[in-house]
């Protein structure tokens, strides 16, 4: 299991971006008891057969790591949800995309800590590739409710997200939204 929930979400969102998606949506809705996360992409999707095998830690499509025999991203999610009274679901249609929903029970003592949300958003917004991404964050405890759009942010940052300069400013911007 990952060290914190943000790492778990980063891992699953990276899958979404790497599925050849032109658009990825992340929702991160938090209350005192639950963190509800939805990652939706319009990438290549998986057939029911491939999806079933993706739940097996000893399965990988063999594309990224030709001779390796493990794929731990989704198994980590299943392990975390099952051991901490959480919920997970993956819907996927080949050629249309994949939607992963995760509900983490924050009152269960075994649930990993949430982790750093603005670090997570900065990280997934700066993954390589020409995808667009919409993020919606809500936290009913702090009253926070904001949205981030990758194209808009990239444009404000002079059209590139690769330089340390852009990433440092992006982090400060996301921090300012998260701490409102």
């Amino acid at each position: 299991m990952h060290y914190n929930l943000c790492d778990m979400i980063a891992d699953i969102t990276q899958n979404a971006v790497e599925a050849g998606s032109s658009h990825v949506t992340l929702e991160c809705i938090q209350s005192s008891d639950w963190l509800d996360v939805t990652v939706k992409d319009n990438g290549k999707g998986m057939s029911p057969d491939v999806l079933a095998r993706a739940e097996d830690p000893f399965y990988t499509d063999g594309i990224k790591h030709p001779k390796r025999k493990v794929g731990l991203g989704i198994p980590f999610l299943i392990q975390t949800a099952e051991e901490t009274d959480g919920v997970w679901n993956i819907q996927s249609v080949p050629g249309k995309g994949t939607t992963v929903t995760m509900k983490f029970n924050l009152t269960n003592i075994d649930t990993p800590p949430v982790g750093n949300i603005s670090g997570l958003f900065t990280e997934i917004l700066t993954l390589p590739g020409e995808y667009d991404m919409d993020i919606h964050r809500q936290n009913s405890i702090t009253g926070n409710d904001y949205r981030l759009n990758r194209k808009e942010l990239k444009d404000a940052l002079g059209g590139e997200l690769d330089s340390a300069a852009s990433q440092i400013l992006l982090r400060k911007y996301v921090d300012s939204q998260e701490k409102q």
Partner: protein
Amino acid sequence: MTLEELRKLRGQMKTEVEKRTTEGKTTQIIVGMGTCGIASGAKETLNAFLKEIDEKGLADHVMIRQTGCMGLCAHEPTVEVIVPDMPKVIYGDVSAKVAKEIVEKHIIGKQLLDKLIIDKPAADIMAK
């Protein structure tokens, strides 16, 4: 901070990065962020690089990229560092503390951190 303020802040910085990159003169830091990297704390490593580069005033001279697993899972977090006129190297076990050292010694001091070099990506991961 508003988007407009963000735009203004970015406008105040130099924007020569892209030009230098095409000339192969920009320093690049590539952090492995596969499941193995993430599980080993690559996010802290990435944040440590950003913080150190910001503090040393190098933000306009360095590109930071994320990549997947480089096949060296036993030594995650792994980081590839490309400094113009220096050999490309991959460092292993790059904690936040080591990240700071890489910025100070390798990127600023132009000295390799010999003991942490892992070499190139594992042979079975490299594109044929």
